[in-house]
């Protein structure tokens, strides 16, 4: 029920005397179409809605490729401190030294942990980070007069954002197939590389949950052809403090700071898609960065990045997200950073091993998982007519947020499971137990699974209608009522 549906008109009384002081021409002729409820009704309405959240604060949330881990509250508290939250974006540099020193250190820490030579905190989201990264690759080739480089190579295991980004930057996309063991098909890559190649976008570990073992060879091949390497930082959580994209040969990386570094996400923002670059791309970095000069900090300008791709927003990224990332990284320190990747991969591999033992089929059974792994339910779909989506919906009844379903597209009937480093062994075991229970139900009472969920506020949704007749607006009628 929407708050408008609770609304009763004439609950509020207009104060005519106050209105009289406003010139008639400036008064609205119709009353505003606002819901009219008492304060208590409003409190109850929103509190009731909040109890329907299925979130990391209430449930295990192994949504693959999304890194739904616990975000320490202290990072949030510090970002909310008035000294940070109250800073005006146009405040002079001399009154912003504290904030700027944090941002400078964040840039430096990100360079250190990724092995890049420069970092920009300007992108306001992952998609903008990707856009800025590929825009820099394009600016680099243009500056060299390499206008014939019109093509970006993207493995078929990539996130959908990669081909979208390349297209938005004016490139055509060439898809590279992936082998059954999860590595890029080097022979196909070799055949695809040419004078038209602007670069390759790669996620490593890939969305298949395995590390690309040929990365150094791939980097050499792309560089030899004059192309640049773009690292999609979606799976940075898996390698934090262990190996660095810069050392693998990448020229650009974007990191979703909100995801790996302590901002609750999944609700549509705000985010941060900070981008790191190799030395030769520093001149092309976006404007608004922090430079340290004579022990004080100043904003970067066009003379610092002479071939800059320009500004990405009016000011400087999303400072709240950046402060959280800064606090989180300082809390972790060098040692803690390593423990993030160690425990996220340990948890994923423990779960994969236990689920294999319980009879589930891993998509890439013979390799170690990174921080996430895939099981395929194609046998269940074929023999029992119970699909990955049915398992996902039934998990909700048992108190678990579903893993990512039907992604990556390469694996039929798949669940992409990312437990993250912050879950206890008991929670991992609970999830596995739930999967075993659903398997048992699928074999003995499949209706129970195929008609799930049974305990949620809504039953199975009509996905076709949601895709084709999406209507999220509440229409106000003539009478000013809704």
């Amino acid at each position, binding site marked *: 029920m929407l708050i408008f549906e609770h609304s009763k008109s004439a609950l509020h009384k207009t104060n005519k005397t106050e209105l009289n002081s406003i010139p008639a021409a400036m008064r609205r002729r119709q009353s505003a179409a606002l819901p009219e409820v008492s304060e208590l009704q409003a409190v109850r309405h929103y509190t009731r809605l909040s109890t329907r959240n299925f979130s990391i604060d209430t449930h295990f949330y192994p949504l693959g490729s999304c890194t739904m881990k616990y975000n320490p509250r202290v990072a949030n508290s510090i970002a909310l401190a008035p000294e940070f939250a109250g800073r005006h974006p146009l405040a002079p540099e001399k009154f912003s030294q504290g904030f700027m020193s944090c941002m400078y250190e964040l840039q430096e820490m990100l360079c250190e942990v990724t092995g890049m030579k420069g970092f920009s905190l300007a992108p306001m989201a992952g998609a903008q980070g990707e856009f800025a990264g590929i825009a820099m690759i394009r600016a680099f080739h243009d500056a060299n007069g390499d206008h014939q480089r019109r093509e970006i190579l993207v493995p078929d295991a990539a996130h959908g954002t990669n081909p979208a980004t390349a297209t938005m930057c004016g490139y055509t996309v060439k898809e590279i197939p992936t082998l059954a063991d999860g590595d890029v098909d080097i022979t196909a890559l070799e055949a695809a590389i040419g004078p038209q190649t602007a670069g390759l976008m790669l996620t490593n570990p890939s969305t298949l949950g395995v590390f690309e073992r040929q990365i150094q060879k791939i980097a050499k091949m792309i560089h030899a052809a004059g192309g640049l390497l773009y690292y999609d930082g979606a799976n940075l959580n898996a390698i934090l403090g262990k190996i660095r994209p810069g050392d693998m040969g990448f020229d650009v990386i974007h990191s979703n700071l909100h995801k790996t570094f302590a901002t609750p996400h999944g609700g549509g923002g705000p985010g941060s898609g900070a981008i790191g670059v190799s030395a030769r791309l520093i001149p092309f970095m976006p404007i608004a960065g922090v430079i340290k000069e004579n022990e004080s900090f100043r904003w970067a300008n066009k003379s610092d990045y002479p071939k800059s791709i320009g500004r990405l927003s009016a000011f400087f990224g999303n400072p709240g997200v950046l402060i959280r990332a800064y606090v989180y990284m300082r809390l972790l320190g060098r040692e803690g950073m390593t423990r993030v990747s160690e425990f996220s991969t340990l948890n994923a591999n423990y779960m994969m091993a236990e689920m294999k033992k319980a009879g589930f089929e891993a998509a890439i059974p013979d390799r170690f998982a990174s921080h996430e792994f895939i099981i395929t339910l194609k046998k269940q779909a074929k023999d029992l007519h119970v699909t990955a989506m049915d398992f996902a919906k039934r998990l909700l009844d048992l108190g678990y947020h579903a893993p990512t*379903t*039907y*992604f990556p597209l390469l694996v*039929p009937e798949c669940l992409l499971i990312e437990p993250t480093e912050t879950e206890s062994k008991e929670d991992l075991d609970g999830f596995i137990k739930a999967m075993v229970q659903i398997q048992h139900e699928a074999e003995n009472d499949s209706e129970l699974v195929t008609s799930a969920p049974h305990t949620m506020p809504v039953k199975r949704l009509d*996905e076709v209608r949601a*895709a084709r007749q999406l209507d999220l607006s509440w229409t106000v009628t003539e009478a000013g009522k809704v």
Partner: protein
Amino acid sequence: MSNIPEEMRYTSSHEWVRMNDDGTVSVGITEHAQELLGDIVFVETPEIETEFTAGEACCVVESVKAASDIYMPISGEIVDANPALTDTPEIINSSPYDDGWIFKINPANEDELEGLMDAQAYEDSIEE
């Protein structure tokens, strides 16, 4: 067992190709492909008179699970696209080989058809 008509040719990316009497060829996706995709919600058909080479992505089929490229099975020019898909994309689910055809091509080189799979070869390929 998936329905795979004998009279058609197939690609490894699950397109079917039917030779028409007027020299054009019709293209759609197989029953197996629509099963994998699930309920189709949107089809972006290719523009008529556009030319593509074999293997090029030429249009997009979107289902509740995924958006998937459709690849040109053989080189040629698009001469027709199924207008019914705009309002009723679900006919790809209900009738993948007939009502749910996606586009027609004027082939650049009919010999390319020989390089496609027959029904048996396609059946073997999806059995794997």
